[in-house]
């Protein structure tokens, strides 16, 4: 009889404990927003996207993911839909293919023109150019969504540390290392370390 009573008490206790465990929506804990950076498919894009990702994650602790796209247009569209936070764009390509405007020959004037139009019409911010130029594509520079820069106020300052940090010769050497078998992430990290940026 005593055993029966004990068993009933235990069953009751277990039921109370089980009732207190109920399936509900998850708590709002998070690790902080993960930033998404595009690589538009080329070796050069892979290196630059990884350089940005490593710089941001190593200096701020923010989680960063590199998302690969087939081409610049696809990456730009994802940026417009807020699926991405940052892309690496080229001034000439942006002027001709995205903005559909006539070419501008002078490099500084071209940068200023695309920067102003992106800012005004697309809510996108051109940050400091990396320093090298890729033929018809023009100068390469990181382009970020305005609301991403608002959420991460230090981001522009950090990314601009890469401004004028990569010459034509340096870019060629980095690309050669990837063609030689190293991963873009390894090459980008070694470059940042050598430059004392991480």
């Amino acid at each position, binding site marked *: 009889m005593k055993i029966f009573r004990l068993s009933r008490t235990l069953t009751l206790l277990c039921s*109370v404990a089980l009732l*207190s*465990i109920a*399936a*509900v929506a998850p708590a709002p*804990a998070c690790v902080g927003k*993960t930033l998404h950076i595009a690589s538009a498919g080329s070796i050069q894009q892979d290196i630059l996207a990884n350089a940005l990702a490593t710089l941001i994650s190593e200096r701020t*602790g923010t989680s960063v993911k590199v998302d690969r796209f087939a081409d610049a247009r696809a990456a730009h569209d994802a940026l417009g839909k807020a699926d991405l936070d940052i892309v690496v764009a080229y001034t000439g390509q942006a002027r001709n293919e995205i903005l559909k405007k006539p070419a501008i020959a002078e490099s500084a004037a071209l940068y200023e023109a695309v920067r102003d139009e992106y800012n005004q019409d697309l809510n996108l911010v051109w940050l400091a150019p990396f320093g090298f130029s890729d033929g018809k594509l023009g100068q390469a520079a990181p382009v970020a969504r305005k609301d991403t820069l608002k959420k991460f106020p230090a981001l522009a300052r950090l990314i601009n540390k890469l401004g004028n940090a990569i010459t034509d010769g340096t870019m060629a050497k980095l690309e050669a290392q990837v063609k030689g078998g190293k991963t873009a992430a390894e090459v980008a990290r070694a470059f940042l370390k050598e430059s004392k940026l991480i």
Partner: protein
Amino acid sequence: MVSGRKLALFGALLLLTGACRLAPPPRPLELGDTVISAAVTWSGEVRIRGTVTVKKEGSLTILPGSRILFERVDKDGDNIGDAEIYVEGTLLAQGTAQEPILFSSAAATPQAADWKFLYLDYARRAELAHIIAEYAYSGVQIHFCKAAVVDSEFRYNVDGVRFSTVNIEVARNRIHHNTHGIRYEERRGAGSVHHNAIVDNEIGIFVVTRSDDRTLFRDNNIVSRQYNVKLGLDQPGDVTFPHNWWGTSEAAAIRATLYDHDADAALGKVRTPDPLPASLALVLPAEK
């Protein structure tokens, strides 16, 4: 003379004993998104597939020897598993030296960030002793509360131990093979971090931001793969780490393991007064 009845009874007892031995182990407790709002005790194996939240009024006690396994689910595709334990109430996870409590990935081939974290946020009471936390984004994250993390092991995580705005003691732990051994933002909190082995991490200690030198790191062995101490982008103030072993006793070699003002003039200085001449003999939990 043994009677037939006694023999039969003896045989039945033998059969019962055999049956007990052959009984299958208890099935693990399997949990999806779950709220705990009363006193709950876990033991044995617990498998988690979502967020387990211990509410303010709830308390979770995890018994020594328990195995808490998190299944890898990544709904938002950020490469960080979603499963976690989120504590606003009380968490008592106190294993023993012989029977630590394991928090790990349920994956066959586990890797860092398979699960998110053990997260203490405004927790009423948090005591962690003799636990092993591995393959998480953060082995443990502690914010806005008072907590002690002692005699434990944090390994193969992105962040081993991470805290901000806390009153914390971190002592006698093995913190190894993480991206960041300890990562913190002081934000007016204070802590005492002592007698730990913080070794073989990429970065031993990552001072992310807003630290006013109120967290005392003393009497630790800190030997890292890349940097022993790194200041984050927004840490302009100096920080001091007295009386630790840095893997070397040479001042220039110690300095080479620090990422601070010397690399970026906008950052503060990392000071390492009274460096120890040799590794400390620490009393730590045995490696499991």
